[in-house]
């Protein structure tokens, strides 16, 4: 760095005093923190040893000294065969956690030959029309040896029923099935947008899924409550924990109404927390997750009277967000990703998937995916951050931020609950409006240069971007998938399909669990579109409220 670079900073210091800084709460950040900021701090009450209530320091005593976090990369392969090949490759290289992404038509309950779906088949993930497709995706994979994470929400019950049928056909005992369906519909209304039915019937489907899982596939997580999309939609640090908590409690309450106990339900619920993104702040991101662990434990024990420590433990994986990745100078995103990952690991995540450096251009190439994995491996093996549990504990700044986060989360939750709860807030578009406004405000801060993005609004160069390799979907995929769908339809017993769909309609109208009626329809090779249409006849469709 030349002399000219350092001079202006010195002058600034002399003339204007230290720079002002504000937290995400809008409060000034002190120049330094000390014992005064932690008055009344009580180690046992506020932190506890790792593995002990209230789990601020981590949900297990030895954390990374016993087991590193799972390095999971989310990637959508276009065809069943490609996905199957990729899965086998990953398993051979020692990975046991697989992640399955679906194309948008599958997520929205549309068949591959639906005209509205014509440009989206096989993009962003694999197309699933019938049970046969899932059988091809999982061919030759021993389902009692892997855990699969399914990114699916509105159609989660249908996809899960398919998965159970594939496992049964393999002869796998259902109590050995492990994995997760995202199945977090409330955040879909606010962000991401793959809703189909109105909130109330959707809540019933989620409760049906939780109930089915805890009775039949107890090692399978029926819900992964997600913070990532809310964060990309403008949620502030504390909201990226308090809003998912509200969603999780809404699901839990729905199942409690059916006569189950909190200790049967809570251990089944997992979270996908967020770090990074446009709102990234290393210490706030660490503090919000530490505060989240403590708050969840307290809510479960004090408010819900859970007695099983498994109910108190906040089990979360973490996503390092792509929203913070810039299109300008994309290689800079590798550094951003590394800091996001550092935050997740300092906060004690058990699993991490990262956005890639080409995130702003397309879905990641193999090179970008590998680089993200390398970032995690460098962090795990070259930096020493895994040597001791919760290394930031006791920091005046981090502990005071953690306290502040917990207090603010409680306030947000109470406020939404006092306004009629999160389901109502979503139905009326209240949450959507609030986050859209926050996103706009952040964007304006970037425009004004108050929020710095290197290479975007500071240190910009006029150098032309170097060409980058970009992932392209294969346009033939839709045709071949439609061919397959036709073949399945030609080979099935259409009277049986109609009969099972009639049965499904009656089950949807009743207040019984829907799962026993989904299985025969899926087995008869009813398509995901046919099953969804049948449910729409009973449940209706969500109408977007005005949110902007």
């Amino acid at each position, binding site marked *: 760095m030349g002399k000219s670079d350092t001079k202006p900073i010195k002058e600034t210091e002399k003339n204007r005093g230290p720079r002002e800084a504000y937290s995400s709460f809008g409060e000034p950040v002190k120049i330094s923190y000390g014992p005064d900021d932690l008055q009344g701090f009580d180690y046992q009450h506020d932190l506890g040893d790792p593995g002990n209530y209230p789990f601020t320091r981590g949900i297990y005593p030895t954390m990374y000294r016993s087991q590193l976090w799972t390095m999971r990369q989310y990637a959508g392969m276009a065809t069943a065969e490609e996905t199957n090949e990729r899965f086998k490759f990953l398993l051979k290289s020692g990975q046991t956690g697989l992640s399955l992404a679906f194309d*948008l*038509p599958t997520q*929205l309950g*549309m068949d591959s030959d639906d*005209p*509205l*779906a*014509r*440009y*989206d088949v096989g*993009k*962003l993930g694999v197309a699933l029309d019938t049970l046969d497709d899932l059988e091809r995706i999982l061919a030759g994979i021993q389902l009692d040896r892997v855990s699969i994470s399914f990114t699916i929400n509105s159609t989660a019950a249908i996809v899960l029923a398919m998965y159970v049928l594939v496992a049964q056909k393999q002869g796998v005992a259902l109590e050995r099935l492990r994995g997760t369906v995202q199945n977090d519909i409330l955040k*879909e209304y606010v*962000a*991401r*947008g*793959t809703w189909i039915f109105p909130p109330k019937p959707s809540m019933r489907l989620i409760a049906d899924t939780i109930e089915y899982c805890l009775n039949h596939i107890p090692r399978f997580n029926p819900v992964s409550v997600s913070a990532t999309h809310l964060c*990309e*939609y*403008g949620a502030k640090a504390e909201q990226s924990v308090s809003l998912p908590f509200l969603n999780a409690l809404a699901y839990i309450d729905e199942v409690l109404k059916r006569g189950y106990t909190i200790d049967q339900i809570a251990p089944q619920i997992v979270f996908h927390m967020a770090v990074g993104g446009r709102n990234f702040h290393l210490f706030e991101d660490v503090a919000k997750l530490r505060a989240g662990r403590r708050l969840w434990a307290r809510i479960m024990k004090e408010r819900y009277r859970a007695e099983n420590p498994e109910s108190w433990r906040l089990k979360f994986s973490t996503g390092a967000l792509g929203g913070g990745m*810039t*299109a*300008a100078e994309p290689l800079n995103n590798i550094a951003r990703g590394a800091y996001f990952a550092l935050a997740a690991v300092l906060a004690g995540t058990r699993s991490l998937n990262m956005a890639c450096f080409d995130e*702003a*251009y*397309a*879905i990641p190439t193999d090179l970008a995916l590998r680089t993200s994995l390398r970032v995690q491996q460098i962090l795990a093996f070259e930096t020493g951050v895994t040597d001791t549990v919760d290394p930031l504990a006791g920091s005046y700044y981090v502990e005071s931020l953690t306290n502040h986060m917990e207090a603010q989360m409680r306030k947000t939750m109470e406020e939404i609950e006092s306004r009629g709860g999160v389901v109502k807030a979503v139905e009326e578009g209240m949450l959507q409006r609030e*986050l*859209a*406004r926050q*996103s*706009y405000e952040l*964007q*304006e801060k970037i*425009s004004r240069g108050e929020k710095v*993005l290197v290479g*975007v609004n500071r240190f910009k160069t006029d150098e032309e*971007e170097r*060409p*980058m390799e*970009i992932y392209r*979907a294969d346009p033939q995929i839709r045709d071949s998938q439609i061919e397959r769908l036709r073949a399945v339809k030609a080979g099935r017993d259409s009277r049986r399909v109609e009969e099972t769909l009639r049965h499904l309609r009656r089950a949807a109208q009743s207040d019984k669990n829907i799962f026993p009626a989904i299985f025969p329809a899926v087995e008869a090779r009813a398509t995901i579109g046919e099953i969804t249409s049948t449910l729409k006849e009973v449940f209706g469709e969500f109408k*977007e409220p005005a*949110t*902007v």
Partner: protein
Amino acid sequence: MQKRRPIRVLIAKPGLDGHDVGAKVVIQKLRHAGMEVIYTGLRQSSEQIVSAAIQEDVDVLGLSILSGSHLELSQELMEKLRARGIGDLLVLVGGIIPPEDVPLLKSQGIAGVFPVHSPLEEIEKFIHEQISRRRGEV
């Protein structure tokens, strides 16, 4: 002199992509700039979008696409606009757009392409300049 009506903008989400935070941010920016902005909501067919553009008598159509299907969707939309006799509408595309696709979109008749993280001022300025020119104000 007769006062010109405010610029009317339709922001649409074609295809199945549900990521609309960018669209909502742009809508707020353009409203603050005094434009009248209508939002279609998610999952609109090109027929629905073209009909809305005609019914609402808009000056500008903005498409937000983050699913990677921008080339196909904008092609189809431009054809439908021409078929309904409004092929000269000012159409913009925003979203996840690889740099080499920008000239392709422009060759389809898209007037302006604004990939994610484009400064909001640029979008606003572009619309103002284009519409002023079309209205013969410049």
